[in-house]
C-alpha cells in the first residue's frame, strides 16, 4: 500500500469577525485509500496531540448523501473529481508531495463560523420561504392513486437529488444560489402534489434568495460542473420560467 506525504495550506479563522489566514501543515505517511476527510482526521489528531487547535470542518454521514462536507480544494468545491462530495474523494487522486490548498465556501450570505465551517442557514430560510405542500391527512394513499409519467418522475427525482451542500454557490463566480433554489422549486413544480402552492412557492423562494444577498446567475454553468449530484442548469431555466409564469398569472 503506497504511502504519501502532503503539504496542506488551510484557511484558519477563529470566528466570524476574525480576519483569518492560511496556515501550512505537513502530513506524512498517509494511506491512499483514505478519504479526504480521513486525511484531515489524521492532521487533527496530530494537532490535538501537540496541543494545537484542530481544523474545524463540517461533516456528518461521510457517505456522500447528507451535504454537510463543504470545502474548496485547490479551487474546486468538493475537489477535482466530478459528481463527488469531499467525503467520497479519496487520496489516490492526489500525488505524493502535492501541496493542497483548502478553503471554505466563499459567499457573503455564508459567513465563516470557524476555519472551514460556514453558516448555511440562508438555505434553510429559502426552503422555509417555499411554504408548505398540501396533503390530505388520514390513511396512507394508495401507491398508484396519482399516475405520474416516467419522464416527469425522473426529472423530479433528478432535482430532488440536491443535498443542499452549497457547492453551486461556492463554484459560481457571482456566489449565486440559483441551482439550489431551482432544484428545490422544480422538484415540486413538476409533480401533481406541488401544484396547489406552485406559484406562491417560486415567488417566495426567489424573493428570499434575493433578500439573502446571493449574486445573480450569469449562466456560466460552473455550478452544474461542480455539483456533487450533477444537477442540470436546465432547472435554472425552469425556475426562471416558473417565476415569470407565476408573476404574470398574478
Amino acid at each position: 500500500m503506497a504511502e504519501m506525504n502532503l503539504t496542506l495550506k488551510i484557511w484558519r479563522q477563529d470566528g466570524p469577525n476574525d480576519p483569518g489566514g492560511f496556515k501550512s501543515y505537513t502530513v506524512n505517511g498517509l494511506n491512499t485509500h483514505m478519504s479526504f476527510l480521513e486525511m484531515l482526521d489524521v492532521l487533527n489528531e496530530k494537532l490535538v496531540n501537540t496541543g494545537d487547535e484542530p481544523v474545524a470542518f463540517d461533516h456528518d454521514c461521510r457517505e456522500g448523501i447528507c451535504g454537510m462536507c463543504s470545502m474548496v480544494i485547490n479551487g474546486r468545491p468538493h475537489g477535482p473529481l466530478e459528481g463527488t462530495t469531499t467525503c467520497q474523494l479519496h487520496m489516490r487522486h492526489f500525488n505524493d508531495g502535492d501541496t493542497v490548498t483548502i478553503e471554505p465556501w466563499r459567499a457573503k450570505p455564508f459567513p465563516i463560523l470557524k476555519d472551514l465551517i460556514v453558516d448555511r442557514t440562508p438555505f434553510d430560510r429559502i426552503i422555509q420561504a417555499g411554504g408548505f405542500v398540501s396533503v390530505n391527512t388520514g390513511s396512507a394513499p394508495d401507491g398508484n392513486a396519482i399516475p405520474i409519467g416516467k419522464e416527469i418522475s425522473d426529472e423530479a427525482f433528478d432535482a430532488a437529488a440536491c443535498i443542499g451542500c452549497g457547492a453551486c454557490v461556492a463554484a459560481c463566480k457571482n456566489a449565486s444560489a440559483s441551482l439550489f433554489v431551482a432544484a428545490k422549486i422544480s422538484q415540486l413544480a413538476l409533480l401533481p402534489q406541488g401544484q396547489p402552492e406552485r406559484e406562491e412557492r417560486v415567488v417566495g423562494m426567489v424573493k428570499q434568495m434575493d433578500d439573502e444577498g446571493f449574486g445573480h446567475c450569469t449562466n456560466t454553468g460552473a455550478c452544474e460542473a461542480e455539483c456533487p449530484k450533477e444537477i442540470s442548469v436546465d432547472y435554472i431555466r425552469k425556475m426562471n420560467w416558473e417565476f415569470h409564469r407565476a408573476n404574470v398569472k398574478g
Partner: protein
Amino acid sequence: MNSYLTSTLFRKTLAALSGLFLVIFLFGHLAGNLQLIMLSGDAAQKQFNEYALFMTTNPAVKILSLLTYTSIILHTLLTLFLAFQSKSARPINYAVSSGSENSRWASRNMPLLGTIVLVFIVIHMKSFWYEMHWGDIGNDLWGNRDIYTVTIVAFRELWYTAFYVLSMVGLGFHLCHGISSAFQTIGIKTKKYLGPIEKFATMVSIIVPIAFASIPIILYLRSL
C-alpha cells in the same frame, strides 16, 4: 407584482430582452453597411448617402432608433448594476481559482467584453452617427450629406481599422455567451430548443462580427 419588478430575475430578463433586441439591430445595421462594399466609387457614394438620409429621416426608422438607444442604455445600466451586486456577494476571493475547469472564458468575462463593446459603440457613434447628425461634413454631387466620404476617410487609417476589427472580436465572444444565456434567462432554452438555440448563437457570434469586420478591412485595402 411589485416584487416582480424589483426582483433580480426580472432585471436580468430585461437585460436579456434588450440584448436580444440589439442582436436584431445588428442584422439590420450589417445589411445597411454592406452597401459600402457591394458597390464602389460614385455608385456606392450615391446609394450609401441616400440610405443614410433615409435612416435619419424616416419616422418608422426613428422609432426603431429610439428603441435601440434605449436598449443600449438599459442593457448597460442593468448589467452594470447586476455585476456590482454580484461582486458584493463574494467579498473575499479564493486563493486558488480554477474557473477554466468548470466554465467557458467568455461566460466568465462578460463585463470585460461588454465594456469593450460599449467603448466601441461610443467611439463609433462619435465617428459616424454624430457626424451625420451634427458634424461639419460636406454634401455629395446629388446634394445629400456625404457620410460615405467620412467613412472612407476614417478607414484609410490603419489604427482605426484595427480598433474596429479587434472590437468585433470582443463582440463575437460577447454574443457567443450572451445569446444563449438570454434565452436561458427568459426560460425558453428547453431541452427541445437547446440544440437550435446553441447553433443559432454560435453561427451569429461567428458570422456577424466577421461580416462587420470585413467592411473596414476591404475599405482599408481599397485605399492602399
